[in-house]
């Protein structure tokens, strides 16, 4: 099964290249951080907001945009569609776990999708953003780990909600609810530094910060290497827990699919 992965990554990449037009639309839908940037810049025009000046907001939201693209997943829609249409049957007949298949194809499409973020990064650097990111090579190494685990978390949450389509017609409604919480609690619309207590403590025990904010914080050098390592540990715990729940739900779902037919 592992031997299949390089070929699958190559074909997934080729597919992503073939989907260029769709991808432009997709990228445009990820521009929310730029809107937030304009908003917070205006707020910070008269002076820094809790330590965030205009340049800090710019660095934060540009990084948020890039990170969000790099950790994107879409398996929730794919699963929902295939389960409802009965198309999942064909996947279940292949000697490869459908979720592994989705994950590989998802991962393969990310380089192409992230390529759209390159101009944003280049402009950001040209405008002096280079001074605002960490210069510690160890931290950068950890950023790679943080990004990968953040993607795994996002994929697993989506796989979980997608799998619920085995049981529940309107499981996508649940995903809307999750996205609302995500937007507020992940640092997508405001740096989590600005969130007051007791909300900050609540956010800390939720998964969202580890899906988006933590990699941004590490890239901008707002957390130390020790704190980054600790965040990696929390991410690993989330990944393990989510993986277990996804697998149990998946097994129950396939059993139900097998009982009622697809």
């Amino acid at each position: 099964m592992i031997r299949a992965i390089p070929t699958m990554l190559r074909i997934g990449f080729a597919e992503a290249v073939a989907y260029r037009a769709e991808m432009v639309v997709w990228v445009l839908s990820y521009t929310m951080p730029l809107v937030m940037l304009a908003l917070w810049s205006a707020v910070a025009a008269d002076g820094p907001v809790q330590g965030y000046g205009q340049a800090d907001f710019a660095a934060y939201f540009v990084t948020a945009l890039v990170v969000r693209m790099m950790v994107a997943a879409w398996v929730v829609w794919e699963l929902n569609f295939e389960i409802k249409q009965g198309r999942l049957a064909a996947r279940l007949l292949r000697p490869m776990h459908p979720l592994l298949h989705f994950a590989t194809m998802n991962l393969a499409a990310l380089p192409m999708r992230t390529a759209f973020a390159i101009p944003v990064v280049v402009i950001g650097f040209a405008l002096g953003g280079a001074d605002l990111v960490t210069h510690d090579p160890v931290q950068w190494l950890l950023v790679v780990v943080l990004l990968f685990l953040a993607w795994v978390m996002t994929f697993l949450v989506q796989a979980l909600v997608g799998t619920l389509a085995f049981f529940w017609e309107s499981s996508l409604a649940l995903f809307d609810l999750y996205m609302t919480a995500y937007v507020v609690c992940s640092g997508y619309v405001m740096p989590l530094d600005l969130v007051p207590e007791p909300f900050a403590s609540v956010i800390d025990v939720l998964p969202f910060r580890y899906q988006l904010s933590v990699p941004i914080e590490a890239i901008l050098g707002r957390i130390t290497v020790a704190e980054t390592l600790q965040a990696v540990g929390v991410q690993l715990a989330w990944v393990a827990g989510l993986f277990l729940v996804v697998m149990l739900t998946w097994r129950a779902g396939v059993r139900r699919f097998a009982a009622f037919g697809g």
Partner: protein
Amino acid sequence: MIHVRDLVKHYRVHRRAPGFGAALRSVFSRKFDTVRAVDGVSFEIGEGDRIGFLGPNGAGKTTTLKMLSGLLHPTSGEVTVAGHVPKDRDHELLRAIMLVTGQKQQLLWDLPPSETFELNRAIYDVPRAQFRQTVDELVPLLGLEKLIGTPTRQLSMGERMKCELAAALIHRPKVLFLDEPTIGLDVTMQSTVREFIRGYNRRHRATVILTSHDMDDVTAIAERIIVIDRGKISFDGALDALIEKMQPEKRVRLTFAEPVGEERLAALPGRVLETEPRRALLQVAQADLRRAVASALETLPVADLEVEGAPLEDVLADLFSRTAAERSE
């Protein structure tokens, strides 16, 4: 290769009357009906057999096929396919079988079919040498030379189906389940697909199990017929035996050199099914066949004469209506 004994699949279906009140009540107490989709089916299928699985809509064909491929778990009974229990869906079994449906496609839409072949090679872990050999064999047989490099979305439906078949056979399945494989194809394409399936069965001793409403598919591909009706097997045997059993009478198709009146046909043994001035179709009991042919040749200006069995459509319509009548008695 396939062993099925006392296979049963019952569904519990939630029933409620229409209306708001009934919807509200159903929240608290649900009523279930049991649907006996497959109700005690047994058969054996050997290596290299070609089976036609027939029955009216809702007879339990697809349910049985899904249980054979492991997509549905039986309520009770035994199934093994190539020595495996399908519901465990272990990878060795999945490498030995393939389900091809005429309606659902697995080809990657925006990439050429050759990429789907590659993907299947990887997923099924086919050795490269064997993969090359299989592709080299399939491409000329199905005439795919110009197609496999073209993005799937630019192919016609028939071209896609041919590529679909090839993609399904990359791992050389030992058991091939075909569900309406020629649906929506033109006549030439249909016969290419049928010919190809027979050839695959011959070359690889693969077991082929077909369900189709197209009787030409069935006569071209299947040598043995299993008829399933309301969850039970109502016939299992050779195609000829089915026709023999249901409609033992033969049909004599006559073409005349000059117009022949109906009164002259009436003198022949048997029953006149169709008549035109220069043509006639008679239905004759086996015992009277020699006499009918001899007398037609002697008394009428016969230009051509053919003897054939009853068409499968008629045989099946007859079979289904008889079993339905037996049940209602």
